[in-house]
């Protein structure tokens, strides 16, 4: 098999066994990106020079008999909202175009310390706000399974990069589904860890109480392997939780006998394409065949998830994005006559439509006279949504739902209807509000040949359990081995 089609664990094993050099691996992926990314558009920046230098350093370590790390020579693509020293970090926004961070995000440092090669920065919806990557101010990304479809979003570039074999692993960020929904659309594994499991230091903030960094991978073993590297407390992020990190790969035993799987009825209701409902039900049947006990359950506040999320997330965003004022870095208007003018015109010129809409709705929800009706109410509903999950986990170990109500939709299909676009995240928003971990894995293809994702949710810090179940499913099916033809 060609190097670019291998999994991360296979590549690391080959590099460590000196069957192939990290440089040869990196060059193979760079060549594939050079040939095919013009049609996919996954990358905003390809870090050719830095990637080859990192590969040479890994090879030098191996030659010197040192341990190169668990991800030796494995290329990893990074969503372009994670800071990389010396490499432009844009958030796909005109307002940050040209910004070169003076420091690396903690996840970037951890990956490099583990021997991984950071190969490039991927496209996203501007400031991670969107569900199709079409809100990028810089580039359009296409779904590798069908170039006329969106890759999902907001981490669409990272999902497309793994699906297209531009890297065996990539990182995204998930505030309301931005890893899981594009993973579903692109037929790869996508993990949103428990809030606080992975450091957010160096991740450009969107909604600080919801944002989490997580991986995209070709299979569950690779996702577990990279989560070993990413997880853990970071003194630079006081919301990262000081809890021991298990070896996630040890959970992949295939044994799920007696495990209790809950199926929340609200997530199989109207609005979910019937074909998707059937494929997810059939995947649950596979798990039942392995000895899992399956039962229906209810998350009664599901219908309030969307409004609660679209108050909390924009409220936090309106505050986080106040820093883009043209004073220090990035875009500054040429038309300012006063300092207020500088702020207002820089922001007007620099932000795209969706970012402006969210800043406006967030500012409105926090403004005098509306705070109790909107923001406080949404925070109370957040408590009820969290309690729904706590109640469900009294009776079930994990819950399974569709990841998204549809498969990948057409480019341009929903750009004029921001609310329809937001409904694409209807199955994923609740995990962020509750802070619990969730992952998406491929459970089949629709009649148009587009991948369908199923979502697994567990209690806080139950990543091991999610990996165990998802891996057991993967052993029974071959969906995860299918790749698009470019």
């Amino acid at each position, binding site marked *: 098999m060609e190097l670019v089609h291998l999994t991360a664990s296979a590549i690391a094993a080959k590099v460590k066994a000196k069957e192939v050099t990290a440089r040869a691996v990196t060059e193979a992926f760079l060549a594939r990106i050079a040939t095919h990314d013009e049609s996919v558009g996954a990358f905003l920046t390809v870090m050719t020079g830095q990637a080859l230098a990192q590969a040479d350093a890994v090879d030098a370590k191996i030659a010197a008999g040192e341990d190169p790390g668990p991800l030796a020579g494995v290329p990893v693509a990074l969503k372009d909202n994670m800071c990389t020293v010396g490499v432009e970090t844009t958030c796909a926004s005109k307002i940050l175009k*040209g910004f*070169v*961070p*003076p*420091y690396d995000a903690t996840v970037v440092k951890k990956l490099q310390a583990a021997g991984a090669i950071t190969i490039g920065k991927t496209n996203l919806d501007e400031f991670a706000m969107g569900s199709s990557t079409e809100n990028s101010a810089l580039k359009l990304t296409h779904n590798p399974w069908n170039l006329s479809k969106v890759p999902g979003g907001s981490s669409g570039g990272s999902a497309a990069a793994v699906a297209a074999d531009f890297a065996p692993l990539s990182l995204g960020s998930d505030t309301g589904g931005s890893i899981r929904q594009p993973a579903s659309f692109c037929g790869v594994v996508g993990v949103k860890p*428990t*809030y*606080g499991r992975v450091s957010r230091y160096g991740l450009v903030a969107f909604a600080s*109480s919801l944002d989490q960094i997580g991986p995209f991978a070709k299979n569950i073993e690779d996702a577990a392997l990279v989560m070993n590297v990413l997880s853990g407390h970071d003194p630079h992020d*006081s*919301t990262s*939780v*000081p809890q021991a990190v298990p070896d996630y790969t040890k959970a992949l035993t295939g044994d799920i006998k007696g495990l209790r799987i809950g199926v929340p009825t609200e997530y199989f209701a109207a609005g979910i394409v019937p074909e998707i409902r059937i494929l997810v039900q059939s995947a649950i049947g596979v798990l039942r065949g392995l000895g899992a006990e399956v039962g229906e359950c209810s998350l009664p*506040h599901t*219908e*309030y998830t969307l*409004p*609660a999320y*679209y*108050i909390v997330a924009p409220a936090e965003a*309106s505050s986080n994005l*106040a820093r883009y*004022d043209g*004073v*220090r*870095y990035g875009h*500054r208007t040429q038309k300012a*006559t*006063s*300092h207020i*003018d*500088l702020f*207002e015109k820089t*922001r*007007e010129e620099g*932000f795209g*439509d969706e970012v*402006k*809409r969210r*800043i*406006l*709705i967030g500012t*409105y929800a926090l*403004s005098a006279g509306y705070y109790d009706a*909107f923001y*406080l*109410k*949404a*925070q*109370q*509903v*957040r*408590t*009820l949504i*969290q309690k729904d999950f706590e109640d469900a986990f009294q009776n079930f170990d994990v819950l399974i739902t569709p990841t998204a109500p549809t498969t990948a939709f057409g480019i341009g299909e929903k750009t004029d209807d*921001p*609310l329809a676009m937001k409904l694409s995240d209807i199955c994923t928003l609740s995990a*962020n*509000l509750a802070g619990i971990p969730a992952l998406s894995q491929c459970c089949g293809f629709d009649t148009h040949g587009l991948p369908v994702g199923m979502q697994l949710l567990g209690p*806080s810090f139950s990543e091991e359990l999610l990996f165990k179940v998802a891996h057991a499913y993967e052993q029974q099916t071959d969906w995860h081995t299918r790749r698009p033809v470019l």
Partner: protein
Amino acid sequence: MALTTEDVRKVGTLARLALADDEIATITPQLNDLLDQFARLQQLDTTGVEPTSHAVPVKALLREDEITPSLSQAEVLRLTAHTDEIMSGFIVPQVLAGD
């Protein structure tokens, strides 16, 4: 409780966005679509429910006050276009009236 274009202009001022008239005309109905969704929350009785601002309870931890390396002024200013030759700071338009 639909927003008018005047409301949107006012919120724009609060958010420091100099919105153009045609932009306000497009955005106002889009924001009202979202507000219609919010209305559903008002039907839910949340009396006595504690608000959640953070999903995972994290206590503020104390640590020793140690000096650790941080970025120098030169490193910070080297990355901006808005400084002078001697890199004395970020240059902005005049804030206080002159004469």
